[in-house]
């Protein structure tokens, strides 16, 4: 209980503190410190859940089980490393005149608020609160995406706001339908939206209503997950916002949205005894993988390239959860972790690389490795990891997903394999000249933060070679939970 309050309280208080303090020289430091405290609280919470099993506290409003505690830990970790990365990055941006102190103040407080909303979404037991937190997550990031106030960033933020707003409205309708179905079983009042209560009676919920509700929920939260064809906002928001925001959007927000979908899927599966929800998720997932893979080769902007790669990976994870079963779910969870870590590492490297070359366009970036080998290798290794090269963790999870697909959904395997191959060719061919060859990069005024990049990559490497037993145990528990 105290851990939950700490996990939620630190970022919220941090947001208020940073808004109050304003743009002081030590604001980035405070940002890092708050994120560190959140991480520590999340670690304590994780330890508690591992030791004592699921927690249901504060009038049943908060619920922690192996499934969400692992995402809480991941969110806190990536939140922390991103805050470390954003210190030198934002400093350089400010010195180059792209940001003012007022904007930095906004950035810091919104960053913490964003972390708060995501943690709230993860920890909330009430499906309504989950919705509120997801909407709030959109609102906090809209202003972050348009931080530079360039025409393109305003457009991206507008698209982001409208598309996600409409999407999330669909999710609200789905939530209403869910409540409607639950009310008949559980009676009116606050209890009928609590996930734990719903989960206990999911067999009695009306299948017709739940099927319809799931369509709306999947469309709604799927918009935020970036599933094709609802993905239009995602590349723009990633490309035009500041890079730390791209990193947390890709690494965290998409996960949280997918988490919401999976929570709903568990309920629907329990009520509707057909493969309806699975098929819907597999269909959306596969479509996202295939479309994103083809879009990759057309990208000219490096951040857009990796944004499409995020869509692709979200598609893979959605597909895995759609297949269901212990192995696919295990692989999905592993993929979620590995993708978050790798993608944020890539965005860290890309962020500094764009600062070195002064452009985000792929044609304008050449020979990073000559001027800073650490960054060049970081980008290259990260990209290889994200493309599913062994021995990184993504290889392990993709391999598991593929063999499960071959056994259970053989029709889908060729699509997946083809998409992965296309993505590989597209990204490698674009990255090769960026990393190697004649250079046009310059030195940065401040030391780039390479520690987060390599920490993430090391973790992903570890996940590929050896999953610690308690982590594996934990994944297995979570995989069982989500059916």
């Amino acid at each position, binding site marked *: 209980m105290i851990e939950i309050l700490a996990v939620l309280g630190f970022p919220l208080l941090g947001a208020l503190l940073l808004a109050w303090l304003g743009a002081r020289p030590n604001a980035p430091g405070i940002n890092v410190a708050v994120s560190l405290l959140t991480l520590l609280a999340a670690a304590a919470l994780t330890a508690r859940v591992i030791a004592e099993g699921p927690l249901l506290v504060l009038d049943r409003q908060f619920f922690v089980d192996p499934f969400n505690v692992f995402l809480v830990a991941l969110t806190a970790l990536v939140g922390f490393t991103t805050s470390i990365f954003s210190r030198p990055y934002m400093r350089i941006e400010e010195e180059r005149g792209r940001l003012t102190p007022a904007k930095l103040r906004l950035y810091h407080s919104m960053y913490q608020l964003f972390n708060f909303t995501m943690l709230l979404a993860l920890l909330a037991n*009430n499906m*309504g*609160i989950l*919705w*509120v937190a997801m*909407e*709030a997550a959109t*609102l906090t990031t*809209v*202003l972050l995406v*348009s931080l530079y*106030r*360039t*025409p*393109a960033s*305003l*457009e*991206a*933020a*507008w*698209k982001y*706001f*409208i598309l996600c*707003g*409409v999407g999330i*409205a669909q999710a*609200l*309708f789905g*939530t*209403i*339908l869910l*409540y*409607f179905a639950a*009310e*008949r079983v559980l009676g*009116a*009042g*606050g209890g*009928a*939206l609590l996930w734990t209560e719903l989960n206990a009676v999911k067999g009695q919920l*009306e299948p*017709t*209503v739940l099927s*319809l509700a799931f369509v709306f929920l999947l469309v709604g939260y799927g918009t935020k997950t970036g599933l094709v064809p609802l993905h239009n906002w995602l590349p*723009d928001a990633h490309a*035009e916002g500041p890079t730390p925001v791209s990193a947390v959007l890709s690494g965290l927000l998409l996960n949280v949205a997918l988490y919401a979908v999976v929570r709903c899927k568990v309920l629907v599966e329990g009520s509707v005894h057909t493969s309806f929800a699975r098929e819907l998720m597999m269909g959306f997932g596969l479509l996202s993988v295939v479309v994103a893979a083809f*879009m990759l080769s*057309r990208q*000219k902007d490096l951040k857009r390239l990796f944004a499409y790669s995020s869509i692709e990976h979200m598609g893979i994870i959605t597909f895995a959860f759609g297949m269901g079963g212990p192995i696919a779910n295990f692989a999905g969870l592993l993929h979620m972790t590995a993708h978050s870590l790798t993608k944020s590492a890539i965005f860290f490297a890309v962020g500094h690389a764009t600062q070195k070359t002064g452009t985000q366009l792929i044609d304008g970036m050449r020979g990073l490795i000559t001027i800073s080998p650490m960054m060049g290798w970081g980008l290259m290794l990260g990209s290889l990891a994200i493309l599913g090269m062994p021995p990184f963790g993504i290889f392990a999870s993709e391999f598991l997903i593929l063999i499960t697909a071959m056994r259970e959904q053989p029709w889908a395997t060729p699509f997946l394999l083809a998409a992965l191959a296309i993505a590989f060719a597209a990204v490698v061919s674009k990255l090769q000249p960026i990393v190697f060859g004649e250079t046009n990069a310059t030195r940065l005024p401040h030391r780039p933060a390479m520690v987060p990049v390599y920490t993430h990559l090391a973790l992903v490497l570890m996940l590929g070679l050896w999953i610690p037993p308690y982590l594996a145990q934990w994944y297995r528990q979570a995989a069982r939970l989500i059916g």
Partner: protein
Amino acid sequence: MTAIPFYAQIINLLAALLLLLSFAMLAQRRVLSLVNLFAMQGLSLALSTAIVAYGTAQPHLYWSAGLTFVLKVFLLPWLLHRLIRQLDVRWDVEGLINIPTTMLIGIVLVVFSFNLAVPISELASTVTRSTLGIAMACVMLSFLMMITRRKAIPQVIGFLSMENGLFFAATSATYGMPLVVELGIALDVLVGMLILGVFFFQIREQFDSLDLKHLEKLKEGE
């Protein structure tokens, strides 16, 4: 027919009014009238929520009704009026598709959502269940409005009126969501509106206009 209590009849009437207002918004060209129509929609929503609260003795719905009243009838229209005045954007809005065609599409959407709602309302036990179809139709119509308008403020009004439809769906299908959720939603709407206000100024500063055709530069393969 005669089994429906009187208050439910008034709710049905207000539901019909809500639908009528949705259509009026779809057909309206003037931004200021659009805001006023939105306020009227909020008013009928608040009234119907209050009547549901009275008729079914659900005190928490009074809160919801009061919240809707303050937020959707006064605060948001006032904010929108202020924005329109400050940004001086009192133009007529011409849609992407001409208005009669939009209306025809609207009718099709209404038929669609009525059909979609029938199986659900048959399951419902509330006296107001038959209005679920209207709520769904309002959501769809607002969606249509957002698609067909290319200016920023009408799009936002469409978004807000979609929220109205959703609230109405919540009231008519289930006598409202739990209060904590409604409070959260209301907060989100308000904060969203404030952020948009800021955002409008940013867009205006950049483009000297709120026409969204300036916001169509980001396309694939550029």
